[in-house]
């Protein structure tokens, strides 16, 4: 692509990446979550593929495909953690620690970000899976139809 497109992509890609990361990491509080943020990040992959050509990203697929499995497994294993009560039980919520901060009482408060227990972790797992899966799909589809696909 032309130098204009490539320059603009260089500028936009980090911003879009940050936005995708925000949507994933803040997904338990605001609209969004792992899938939506992952799709945003995958759109960055699409942008880079369009701007710089698919050939350059071919070797990325080898890294992305195992990552997709890791994300999926992490999600299921997080769900398994709750098996003491039920599958998907949020064992970290309200337990103290990094993700289990107590839920503040209703009314004005400075904000508590980490009250959701396993939910942010699950969002990260789904985000990883979607980034890796959709990213690999975008790269492979744009390679498809060339000499060997």
């Amino acid at each position, binding site marked *: 692509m032309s130098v204009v497109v490539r320059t603009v992509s260089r500028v936009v890609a980090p911003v879009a990446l940050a936005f995708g990361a925000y949507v994933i990491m803040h997904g338990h509080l605001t609209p969004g979550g792992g899938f939506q943020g992952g799709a945003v990040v995958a759109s960055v992959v699409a942008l880079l593929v369009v701007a710089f050509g698919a050939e350059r990203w071919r070797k990325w697929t080898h890294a992305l495909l195992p990552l997709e499995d890791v994300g999926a497994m992490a999600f299921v294993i997080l769900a398994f953690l709750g098996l003491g009560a039920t599958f*998907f039980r949020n064992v970290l919520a309200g337990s103290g620690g990094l993700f289990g901060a107590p839920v503040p009482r209703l009314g004005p408060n400075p904000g508590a970000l980490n009250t959701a227990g396993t939910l942010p972790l699950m969002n990260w797992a789904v985000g990883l899976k979607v980034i890796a899966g959709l990213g690999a799909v975008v790269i492979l589809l744009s390679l498809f139809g060339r000499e060997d696909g």
Partner: protein
Amino acid sequence: MLVHAPILAIAVPLLGAFSLLGVSYISRTWRNVWACLIAAFTSAMAVAVAIRAYTEGVVVYALGAASPTQSVTAGGFPIRIVLVVDGLGAFMGLIAALTGVVALVYCFQYLREEEGKNLGLSLLLLLWAGILGMVYTGDLFNFFVFLEVTSIAACALIGYRVWESRPPEAAFKTMAMYTLGGLLVLIAVGILYGEYDALNIAYLGKLIAGSPLDRLALGLLLGGLLMKAGAVPAHMWAPDAYGEAPAMATVVLVANTQAAIYAILRVVFTLYGGALASPGIGWLIASLGIATVLVAVLMAVVQRHLGRLVAYGAVSQLGYMLLAVGVGAVARGGFGEVALTGGIFHMINDAAAVGLLFLVVGAVRRAVGSVDLLSLGGLGHALRWEAGFFLLGALALAGIPPLNGFASKFLIYESTFRASPILAALALLASILLLAVVVRAFQGTFLGPRVREASPAPRGMLVAMGILALVIVVFGLFPGFFIERIVAPAVQAVLTGREAYLAAVLGG
């Protein structure tokens, strides 16, 4: 442990599907061991759920709750995703367990490493998890998700042989139909959610009053599920898919199709069993069923591709199930009960008989490299076991006593005759035609002088075929025993179990 059995039966194959690729980096032996462990555990869980559902009644499992039975909030509103396994779901779980185990036993020596065995095994487990999810879930949107999981895994498995020309085409055709069907289901779910603010099947079943929107959603649900099931006039993907998919995948695809029939039963009898219990829906399903039977059998007559011939046979069997479901919905009790007994019993009989035929077709393709009836012949000399299994499966499919197909088909004829003698006569005629078709296929493939050398299937594949053959013979010899133990509770769950289903989820 056993209290978590319903979700473990879904989550463990799901985890297995994702972890299989990682384990395959270590070694192939470990991957095979891992797949066997996953399969053994999953089927053990499915059996455990079935035993609980048969002995204690409806099994409810609320995901993420403080305890598995806490399916509603204090106000009586079902807020969580629930798994609900009644007699029918338990029965379908048993079918899924049987087909999954058989497929896995078969595929170890059937798939070749260099063509992507890792992916084949992984997709098989994913398809299995999807089917179990479809039949266990008590949440309409969750059902749609599992429907899509099976669709994606099924399409990828159908296109497994990407280096040939026809499998990708079959996979594409199937994907188009599955996506369209899934979309119809999704729109129906959206309509019901917009109307009642709920996705729980039991809760919706209580609320649905038969408004025009409800009727629209019913039409969309039935349309989508009939597409997924491959009923006429949306059957055109099924012969391609069954004919081109690797043999072990076809066995599970048959179970997947039956999960769509299960969903039709669930929609007609549980979700809409209160307000819209009109015989008109039954007549509609029954007429689509008889159309499926006739069209599929007539198409089977002219096939020369052995896989497609058996595939049309499989589609026709699906028509019998639809016919039985339709007659059951027309009568709801009396001869309708007989029809449902026949239809539900026919599901497991069909999975065994059609599955066995597909496995033999896969073995023939592996041994000879071709499934064109005009070029085959005389294979019975070399492939003795396969010939015997094919004959057994063919006769069971056509409903010859004392094999299992006879027991269930006879119940279907008998009850259909009470509803409409013409339908029964047509169904019987189709069965006779089917016998002619499969006998011709057997003769063309296995009989005659030895024309070429062929190496028999390895032992693992024969064991898989043997399991299904055993099911055919045992179910055929003792139909009463199995109908009483495993089919009758499923029928009762359909006909009279609606109140128990609703009460189990929503409380007293």
